[in-house]
């Protein structure tokens, strides 16, 4: 049993007209997934602190003029929530389009082809083409690490690598540099990854990465298999440590 006290206060709310119950403190995303109701996410990864940045999980709350991110909004008594209105679907599609247009996601030649969360969500959300002009900006590929590779062309800035390294591994190799569209993930103080002194070579970032940005070096097209399922176990183990 969990050593930390678990809230047992129960609230009831509506998700898409379905009555559901939740424990106080649970997020809308957690409740929806518990119910088998899908909400798309990219920056969220179970076991890491929610970041609220991809905006794919925006939902409608009755009575609130603003859309709310399901990953950080806590369930409360009497909430009436819509998970997938036409408006939300339209926004999700546009956000995915924006991500594809931002960097160079050439799925056909990507090591993560076939196992990529971005590629997957595009299909599930009906993105047949991208209406925004592709930016075609030049990005580097950092192959200086002996085991892993960072391809900035594929990065979607979800910061799952930053958080897993900081929160779970405790090394804080990754962080961000630059602003706006120029923002990039950097190792240490903007060093080539291979020269990072803080990297423990644990590989957690590889498996936390939803796309083909952080990968194992030996992989070719379609070959990168990611396993992020270890995270909730690690988190639970840590929380339940006697």
């Amino acid at each position, binding site marked *: 049993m969990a050593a930390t006290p678990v809230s047992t206060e129960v609230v009831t709310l509506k998700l898409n007209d379905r009555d559901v119950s939740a424990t106080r403190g649970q997020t809308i995303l957690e409740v929806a997934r518990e119910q088998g109701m899908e909400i798309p996410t990219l920056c969220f990864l179970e076991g890491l602190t*929610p*970041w*609220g*940045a*991809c*905006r794919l999980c*925006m939902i409608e709350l009755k009575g609130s003029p*603003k*859309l709310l*991110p399901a990953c*950080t909004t*806590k369930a409360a008594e009497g909430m009436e929530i819509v998970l997938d209105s036409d408006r939300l679907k339209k*926004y999700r599609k*546009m*956000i995915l389009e*924006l*991500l594809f*247009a*931002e960097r160079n996601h050439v799925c056909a030649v990507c090591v993560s082809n076939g196992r990529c969360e971005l590629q997957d969500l595009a299909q599930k959300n009906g993105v047949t083409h991208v*209406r*925004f*002009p592709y*930016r075609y900006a030049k990005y580097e590929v950092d192959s200086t690490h002996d085991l892993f590779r960072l391809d900035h062309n594929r990065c*979607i*800035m979800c910061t799952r690598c930053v958080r897993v390294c900081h929160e779970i591994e405790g090394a804080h190799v990754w*962080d*961000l540099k*630059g*602003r*706006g*569209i*120029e*923002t990039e993930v950097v190792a240490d103080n903007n060093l080539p990854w291979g020269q990072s002194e803080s990297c423990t070579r644990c590989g957690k970032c590889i498996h936390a990465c939803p796309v083909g940005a952080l990968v194992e070096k030996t992989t070719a097209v379609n070959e990168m298999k990611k396993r992020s399922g270890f995270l909730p176990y690690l988190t639970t183990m840590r929380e339940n440590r006697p």
Partner: protein
Amino acid sequence: MTPEELRQSAEAERQKSHACKHILGVCCAAGCQSMGSDKIKDALDKQVKLKGLESEVNVKSVGCLGLCAAGPLVSLESDGKKAMYQAVKEADVAEVVEKLGKAPVKRLELSLDIPFFARQQKIILENSGVIDPERIEEYFAAGGYEALIKALTDLEPAEVIDAVSRSGLRGRGGAGFPTGLKWATVAKAAGSRKYVVCNADEGDPGAFMNRSVLESDPHRVIEGMIIAGYAVGASQGYVYVRAEYPLAIKRLKTAIKQAEGKGLLGDKILGTTFSFRLEIRLGAGAFVCGEETALLVSIEGSRGMPRPRPPFPAEAGLWGMPTLINNVETFSTVPPILRNGWEWYSAIGTEKSKGTKVFALAGQIKNTGLIEVPMGTKLRDIIFDIGGGVPDGKKFKAVQTGGPSGGCIPESKLDMSVDYESLREAGSIMGSGGMIVMNEDSSMVDVAKFFTEFCMSESCGKCVPCRTGTAQMYGLLEKIHAGEAVKADLELLKELCDLVRTTSLCGLGQTAPNPVMSTLHYFEKEYTSLLKDGPGKPAAAR
């Protein structure tokens, strides 16, 4: 220092001031200083000494006199009569001193009866241009720290909050959240420590309200913050000010040191049990750090990126503790509210927007400068009466209020009252109070492009709609501007604006489309006339 000692010091300062027949106040805020007001002050000092008039004439540095366009400005108070000199040069100094006690120098005189001065009502700026910002005694003499004495000796924290609530004061940083409610929330929130933070990260192009207050009357901000600390139960405060404001930082540092020296900051303030410390944190030039959650993260020492609210800083702010965050103007308004009573304050302004607001007039307007007017003043009066209208015989076209993420308001809306609700209705925002006036020669597509570029490069890069949406908005605006766009591009731009506004994480992204949306709303023809398949153009291949 005890309250009695403070009052004695104030009285002594007043006496000293009355002893002088003539007071020459040289504006030493950044605007006039950049035009050489320091040298004029030195020259005046020398001239007064040369003429042996030191006992009669007090030459002092004062804060912003408002009409920056006419600087360097020198105010004159002679036997109770006030006058103002404009565009003073070193060569004028001898004559200025010579004419003291006689009729003022005609060719330099700037009438105080012009609407720019006559129509203003100064509360936040009451001491600006009057006192020497580097002398705490002058602030005492102007009634400074009286509100703090009243709060600490006569009022319970809850009574302070009650007065702020009843005054109707709303946050001057942009969104207009009721200040009293915010204070009450922080006061109620549970936490082993609490913080008070002043947002002085004024990053809007064309805005200099906060800078001017800090340069002209820094003690007012400090006093407001100490009172806030007392009201909400905080003993530590931070002023987050952008590093690009060296003079404001210098004056604020001086003021903090003085307040500490007088026992107004630190342990057991004014002999009571209340303690409060204040530190300065410098921003490194990121516009997004004006957003409260990003600002707090920056104070904590991390990269300034906003985080989702709730939880609001009032519940979980600095280091997870309840934190009160207000801007410079909001804190500056608190002392006069306590001194004069909330009834006095709530009688000024409109039903929902109380008090006065400071605006920075910039762009194609005659009287560039800083003004303070009651809420509810008509936009037309601000621009044409106080601001003197558009120079060079050009026609007015639009005014951008609320900074880079505000909206453009056209001629037809000029008779609206300036308050939070009306501005929002017109597709703009109050923001921190920048007003940029544009004349008939301005292209509104250019204007939208300019502000979108600003928001694009100042986006923190965290959320997708703001990071990449603003970049795509900018690309589409460039395409339209270059005459290469078609109707479908304009439609896509509109959809994108809706997305960025609705789904962005923080205020920066949520308001970034305002310049585009408001210019599209009021000046759509300027966009469509640039389209390849716009009105009157042959059908394009697309």
